[in-house]
């Protein structure tokens, strides 16, 4: 009995408190970053409870004319597109056999997994009857709905990502048999994931194809699904660059044994891909505009905003990536990735909020409570990411296990 209790306490100490005593662990968490996170959550969590108890009316600025706000525009649209890293790296690594991207795989998969899980978590606050979340899966099927496709794809993709990530979990739990089994399953999960991730990334764009009368003609296009898919690939590549840059700064100790020259070379290669993607994306946007023929709208306030979006955040980063690659400047490549991510976030916000209902009598601006929940959910995602990276073999190989490859 005593030995068992001992074993349990040492397990907690090793696995949860990073080998420190509880007191040391608490002390190690007294940092400025954690203080900020604590303040955010101290505001956000009561707001979440308030939303669930008092409903959408008192906690949002949503109206009958503007039924969707930032919980869809930011949490879902931006959250999911920025979680495309798993799709991109998964394809490159598992399907194209680019083994050199080995150490990008686990962080990218984890980022995607958490991105999806927290996007769905955020969605719970937006749904009027959140407790019916599984209804499209088990109760009633709206087969003609794009939303139906998205719901199923989200659910399946989260399972696929979980399988892809689970070897790290089983290494941490020291369950060798599970780890072997799921490592093999991971390749299949990756294949399945690639197929359906493309489907729902484009479906998020297709959501708005249904509302030609409400979305500004410069943003509306029958090509919206293609725009969303191509920009998701670009976002995936850029996010992998940004996320690896950040993790290498924050978790310095874990990447001590890294080959930095190799890392920078691969970063540049990703930049090359993003550059090509951005050129294609820009061309498609221009093609979409030509197809609608609404050149006249460019000379309006919305037109300037549209030009700002595609020139500064699509064409310019395409050239900056190319420049960074050509002159082997990893700094420029990284900052361009940051810029590209901002640009794609801007595109999603424009499509769902700024250019949506542009002609409606009532416009939407988020209430502070909506912002609080969004920021709170993002904070939770970041904290979860850090918690896992600190404990499991995400940025490095687990010393007790051979590399999967």
């Amino acid at each position: 009995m005593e030995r068992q209790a001992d074993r349990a306490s040492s397990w907690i100490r090793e696995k949860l408190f990073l080998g420190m005593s509880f007191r040391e662990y608490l002390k190690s968490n007294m940092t400025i970053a954690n203080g900020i996170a604590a303040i955010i959550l101290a505001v956000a969590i009561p707001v979440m409870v308030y939303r669930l108890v008092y409903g959408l009316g008192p906690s949002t600025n949503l109206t009958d004319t503007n039924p969707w706000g930032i919980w869809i525009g930011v949490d879902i649209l931006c959250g999911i597109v920025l979680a495309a890293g798993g799709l991109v790296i998964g394809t490159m690594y598992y399907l194209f056999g680019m083994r050199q991207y080995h150490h990008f795989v686990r962080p990218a998969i984890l980022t995607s997994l958490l991105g999806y899980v927290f996007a769905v978590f955020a969605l719970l606050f937006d749904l009027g009857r959140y407790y019916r979340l599984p209804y499209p899966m088990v109760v009633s099927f709206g087969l003609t709905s794009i939303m139906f496709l998205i719901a199923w794809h989200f659910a399946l993709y989260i399972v696929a990502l979980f399988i892809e990530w689970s070897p790290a979990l089983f290494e941490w739990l020291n369950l060798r048999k599970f780890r072997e089994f799921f490592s093999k399953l991971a390749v299949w999960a990756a294949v399945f994931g690639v197929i359906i991730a493309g489907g729902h990334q484009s479906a998020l764009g297709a959501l708005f194809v249904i509302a030609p009368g409400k979305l500004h003609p410069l943003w509306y296009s029958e090509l919206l699904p293609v725009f969303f898919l191509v920009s998701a690939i670009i976002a995936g590549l850029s996010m992998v660059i940004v996320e690896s840059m950040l993790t290498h700064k924050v978790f310095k100790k874990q990447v001590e044994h890294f080959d930095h020259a190799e890392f920078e070379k691969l970063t540049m290669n990703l930049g090359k891909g993003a550059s090509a993607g951005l050129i294609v994306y820009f061309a498609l946007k221009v093609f979409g505009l030509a197809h609608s023929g609404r050149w006249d709208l460019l000379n309006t306030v919305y037109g300037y905003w549209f030009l700002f979006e595609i020139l500064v955040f699509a064409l310019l980063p395409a050239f900056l990536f190319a420049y960074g690659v050509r002159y082997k400047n990893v700094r420029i490549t990284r900052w361009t990735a940051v810029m590209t991510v901002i640009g794609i976030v801007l595109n999603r916000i424009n499509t769902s909020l700024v250019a949506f209902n542009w002609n409606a009598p009532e416009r939407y601006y988020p209430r502070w409570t909506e912002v609080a929940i969004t920021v709170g959910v993002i904070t939770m995602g970041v904290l979860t990411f850090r918690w896992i990276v600190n404990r499991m073999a995400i940025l490095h190989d687990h010393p007790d296990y051979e590399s999967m490859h």
Partner: protein
Amino acid sequence: MDRREFLKRVACISSTALIGRGDVSAEEAHVHTDRYGVLVDTTFCIGCRRCEWACNEWNKNPNQPVKNFEDKTVFQTVRRTRAATFTVVNRFKNPDDNKPVYVKKQCMHCENPACLSACFVDAFRKTEKGAVIYNPDVCVGCRYCMVACPFDIPAYEYNEPISPRVTKCTFCFDRISKEGKVPACAEICPTETLRFGKRQDLITLAYERIRNNPRRYIKHVYGEHEVGGTSWLYLSAVPFEQIGFRTDLGKKTIPDMSKGFLFMTKVFEIIAAWPLVFAAFYALSKVKDRKNKSETSSQGKKTDGHGKTS
């Protein structure tokens, strides 16, 4: 044959070859002669708003004495349907003679409803009689129907914390399915504004009125073709965009806009699946090969290719 038609046919042919069944959506636009409709002749409406009162009464929405509906100050703003208000009458100005034009607004009951096609739990239904009705028992509250509706009709019970519903005009489906009963608004209307009947007959009647009084009406029956046709039809003396209607919606049905995408996605996922599965199979066998090789060449070496091992 234009480009879209061409693409559609190509998709049709390839899909027929693939899964043995074509995309039937293009041919699906049957005419339902049995469906009811209401013809709203805005030239008769006097803005008494009794339809609003009767609507609230029948649908058990919060109501006021019918006298209060004579209050004309509500016309100072253009109103829309709300959670407990399934129909509203708005006032516009006829630019020719500056006389008021009253326009009743409610669900148009589309022949091919956008809300129905948008709903991911199939909460909407187009009944045989023509009503588009909503089933709150499966609704999750995503509000995509409100995004999809081209007429901005569905409203939401935002102030209902636990079980909010989407609300809209029901075409009094519980009344019209009984013989001889008409919607509550049409029943109370003291003028010739609201005429309930078979949609097909109403279209004939509308054109008759236009023909007999060409100076009274513009030559357009709103709802005959808009977004593929609606059960509710409108006649007007002034162009419809001047009395709060959208005339840029086109004749294409809204569900068709997502159909193409859903179909292409499914086809893509079926086609793309195979090469990807083979690629994975290949990748796996390669890993196995390499493992066998590395096991024979250097036994005991655990890690490979990750950073600098030295």
